[in-house]
Each structure stands twice: as structure tokens, then as C-alpha cells.
């Protein structure tokens, strides 16, 4: 049965079942008595975007409960990741890729046209262009006037840097896999570092992550071996965060930065929050509270944020 009152509208969360930030949001919503819908399987969600000359009409369907939600009746949508889709498990790889491409393309108008707030997906072309790990995103950053980190391309130069003892992070241009080249002893796969770092090339591997949530900002330092810790935002951090916010229009965005030529330069922007940031004390509950406050204005968000880890 379609809901009639906005007050009972759920927050729709697309995330993997064990996502720590989704868990934090769930906890915060529960604390405040707010309904939250996080499908365990994508097949639990139906969607329809109908387009005519006057615009788009977006509807979400909770198949498990038999509810239809026109998008203006949802409190909001947060996208962290596509939930698993059990029906594709037994498909051949080519068919699986086809289905995933179709699902992603079909959902884009949901993110772009939904009448409720959508966090975690770009709602404009410029925002879409700057997200991602590829060099294209870095070119787009430069074009939009944001300080993009330089990226080394070309085998000769990378080898030279390695021979000089610099640590170079090499990213595959085809599948996004990456590894560190240490000295000239060959490449070593170091998954923890790969998981936790995003700098392209830095002698000290120091990397700073700006976590921008609306007008709020938190910063995180990533050190050798992937250790993370919260840091006090500097004036430089705040200025860069304001520029990113203004240029991309993204409400929740993470900027991964490396220090180059005396300034922070962006190695990538992401609208998703990586699981390892949950290791920073208070980070998960801060983001959970911010999302609740964004989706349900007037909730007890402000008190929860100032309450710290909660």
C-alpha cells in the first residue's frame, strides 16, 4: 500500500550487508525511530523511471513488503554499493556483465531524477566525470579547476623513479588493480596497502583524506602500512573542501590527496565511504548521523554529532 505521510517514509540504503557505515546509519535511524530499508538482495527492489516530454517519474518498489514508493515519498536514498543479485550467480561471465551493465544504466535515471535527496551518486554530468580512479577523472578535475595530482605514465619514467628509490604506485589502466614498486627489486603485491592507500607516487606515502559531508569536514591521515588516524582540518583543507563542494555539487564526497609541490593535490574523489575509514574513532557514527540529519531534517542529528562516537 502506498504510504500517505512523509513521516513514515523510509531511508533507502544500497550497501553490502556488512558495510560498517550502513550499520551506523541503521543504528542511528533505529535510535530515532526512523524506518530504514536496506535490501539484502537487489531482487528485493523494483524500480521504474517513466519519461515523457514533461520530465521523469521515479518509483521504488519494496517487493518484500509489497510497498510502492514514488520517489517524493522516500526520505532519501543512500548508495554505498550495489547489493548482491542472487539471480546472476549462475550466469556465464558475459551474461553477468550484460546484466550488471543494464542494471547500472537503468538505475542512473533513478539517481538523477528521484525527487528525494540522493547521496552517493552523482546527479549531474560534471560530478559524474570527476568521480573514479581512472586518469579520465583526473583530467576532468583539472578541467574543472581542481588541483589534480600528477600521474606518472610511461614505463621508462616509472622505472627511473623506482631506481632512484622512490616508491611508485602503479595502477593498471585496464582493470584498476594496483601495486607498489619498491626500489628496483620488482613489483610486490601488498594488498593491505593497495586497499588502504590511494596516492599515486609519494616518497613518504603520506596521504590525507578529506571527508566532506555537507558543510562539515573531517580529515584523516593514512600512513605507511595503511594506518589511519583522524586529524584536525587545516585552513588549507577547508579551502580545498569548499572548492570541491562548489564545483561538484556532491553532498558527501571523499577527496584522497597527496602532497605535491607544497600543496594537496587530489588523486581521486569518491562518493562512497571505504570500509577502512570505520577504523577512525567516531567516523562511522558521524557519517550515520549526518545522513539521518540530511534525510530527515529536524531529527536529533545535531545532538548526535556533538555527542561524538555515540
Amino acid at each position: 500500500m502506498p504510504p500517505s505521510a512523509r513521516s513514515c517514509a523510509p531511508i533507502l540504503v544500497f550497501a553490502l550487508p556488512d558495510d560498517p557505515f550502513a550499520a551506523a546509519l541503521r543504528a542511528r535511524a533505529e535510535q530515532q525511530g526512523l524506518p530504514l530499508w536496506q535490501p539484502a538482495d537487489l531482487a528485493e527492489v523494483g524500480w521504474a523511471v517513466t519519461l515523457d516530454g514533461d520530465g521523469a517519474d521515479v518509483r521504488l518498489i519494496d517487493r518484500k513488503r509489497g510497498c510502492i514508493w514514488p520517489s517524493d515519498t522516500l526520505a532519501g536514498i543512500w548508495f554505498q554499493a550495489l547489493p548482491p543479485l542472487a539471480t546472476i550467480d549462475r550466469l556465464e561471465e558475459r551474461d553477468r556483465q550484460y546484466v550488471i551493465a543494464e542494471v547500472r544504466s537503468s538505475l542512473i535515471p533513478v539517481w538523477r531524477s528521484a525527487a528525494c535527496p540522493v547521496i552517493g551518486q552523482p546527479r549531474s554530468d560534471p560530478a559524474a566525470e570527476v568521480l573514479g580512479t581512472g586518469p579520465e577523472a583526473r583530467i576532468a578535475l583539472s578541467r574543472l579547476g581542481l588541483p589534480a595530482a600528477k600521474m606518472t605514465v610511461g614505463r621508462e619514467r616509472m622505472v627511473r623513479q623506482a631506481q632512484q628509490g622512490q616508491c611508485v604506485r602503479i595502477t593498471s589502466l585496464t582493470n584498476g588493480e594496483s601495486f607498489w614498486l619498491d626500489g628496483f627489486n620488482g613489483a610486490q603485491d601488498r594488498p593491505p596497502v593497495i586497499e588502504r592507500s590511494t596516492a599515486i607516487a609519494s616518497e613518504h606515502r603520506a596521504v590525507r583524506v578529506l571527508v566532506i559531508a555537507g558543510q562539515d569536514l573531517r580529515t584523516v591521515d593514512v600512513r605507511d602500512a595503511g594506518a589511519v588516524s583522524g586529524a584536525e582540518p587545516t585552513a588549507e583543507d577547508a579551502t580545498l573542501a569548499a572548492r570541491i563542494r562548489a564545483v561538484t555539487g556532491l553532498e558527501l564526497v571523499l577527496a584522497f590527496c597527496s602532497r605535491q609541490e607544497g600543496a594537496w593535490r587530489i588523486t581521486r574523489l569518491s562518493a562512497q565511504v571505504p570500509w577502512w575509514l570505520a577504523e577512525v574513532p567516531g567516523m562511522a557514527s558521524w557519517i550515520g548521523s549526518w545522513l539521518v540529519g540530511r534525510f530527515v531534517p529536524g531529527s536529533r542529528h545535531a545532538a548526535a554529532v556533538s555527542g561524538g562516537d555515540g
Partner: protein
Amino acid sequence: MTRRILLVGSPRDPTYRHTVSMPVPDGCDVVTLDIDQLATDPTICLDGELGGAVPIRVIDGDRVLAFSEIDSCYARFIDPPPEQHPAHDEAAWAGLRLLQLALAAAPFPVINRPGAGESNDTKPMHTAQLGDLGFPIPRSCTTNDRDEALAFLMSCPHGAIYKSNSGQRSIVQAVGPDDLDRLILLDRCPVLFQERIHGTDIRVHVIGERCHAVAIHSGNVDYRYDRSGTAREEPFPVPDDLGERCVRATAAFGLAFAGIDLIQRDDSGDFVALEANPMPGYHGYDLALDGAISASLWNYLART
């Protein structure tokens, strides 16, 4: 002064072969780059730091050309041959990606710059953008839900068609009575439905500000797959207002060259826009137009 034009493509691609075979304007020096050879032939060499641009040199026989020595480029990227699929040949695939990056940021005009017109890979959004650009568009519904699809189909008194949402090639088909029983399968994969527009298919090729169009008369919903032998193409004079809209749309998608698919409605004569192809396979239409498209393309490359 000699204009140096870089052609990038594969001899396996009939459109690329056609382009190479057409007359080149006087005063042009054409350098070809075979993307199938990137793995085995060091045709391109990248070395430097990627910031806002990609440093690249093109090796053409004994010549080594910096990008700064190139005046314009026509590039058609197609999938590598099966033996060069990334799973088999990382080097070839990486070379292709590097070249695409380089052309995306190149300082000279590129037809078409990699990445431009990407919305074509997301048909529902692409259709909406065409609507925003002033074209009538077909009513559409992308869904993975049987009931929503059924409700949409019932609202289409003149029938409906279905096709893929993404850039994956699919054969456009009319929704028939048997398809209604298959709607239950939608929860496994969403589909894009559109109201069926009855009329004549029109393909407009835009190069810069020039338009060349062909009308296609076919009994098939998707004329590309009409094997009846009765389909025919004929030159179609583009009305001024339609041409202006097509030129504007091409520029809005960041393209210099586009193949815009339209249907001229039988009932009202209106032109309904279906999509703007960012890498038009134009050679068949060019033959129907006595080479007018390729002549405009070469002129653009020689003068822009």
C-alpha cells in the same frame, strides 16, 4: 602550409576503411595509426606526467611526431580482436587505453574526443537529454518490475518497443503478445520500453555545422537488421529548424561528428529523436549520399 591529420582506427572496421579510402583534400599529410598493432608495434610512446594533458609521441615509420605537430584527428575505437582481449593481452589493451586518454586531452580537434557523448551508453538519460535539447522524444520506461512495465505498455495505444538500457548493442523489437508472459523475467534484468513511433526512419549526420540525411524505408522495427531486400535509403533534405537542432545537440554532447536517429511521424510529420551516436558507422549512408558525409568530414579535418 601542410596540415597533419592523424587517423586512428582498425582495418577490421569498414567505416575506418571507407574513411581512409576517400579523397583527401590538397595540402594534407595523413598519418594512420592501426590500433590492432599497438601491442606488437611500438607505434605510440608515452612518457611523462599526466596532469591536465597526456604527453605522447606517435611513431610513423622513421618519423617521431609529437602531439604538438598534429593538427586534427579522426579516431574510431572498436573492441580489440579476440586474441587481444585484455584477458589475453594486457599490453595491447593498455596501449589502447593510453591512446584514448591522450586523445581525450589532446590540444587539437579530435573527431570524436574519447569520452564525449558518453551519455549514449545510458539510453534513458540520453533520451531525456535529447528532450531537454528541444526534440520530441518517445515516452519511455526503464524498469525491472513486471507490473510497472505492464502499466506502461497498456498506456501505449500504438504499441511499444524494447531495447537495452546500456551501450550494449541490442536489436530493437516490438513488444508482442508473447512478450507479456515474459515480463516476469524483468526482475532478473531491467529493460527499456518505449512507445512505438510509426513513421519513416531518418538518419542525420552532423559534422560541425553541416548536416547530411538519409531516409530509410523499411518494414522492420530495427532497419539495421532488415534482411528482406526491400529496404531502401534515399537522400533526405534536412529542414532548417531540424538541422539547427541537430547541430546544437551535437555540440551539446561535446561532439564534432554525430549520427542522429530520428523518426518522422506519419501522423504529424514531427521528428522524434531516438539517439545521437557518438561514433557513427556512416559508410553505408555515405554511399547513398555519393560521399557527401566523408567529404564534409575531410573538410572539417583539413580546416578546423
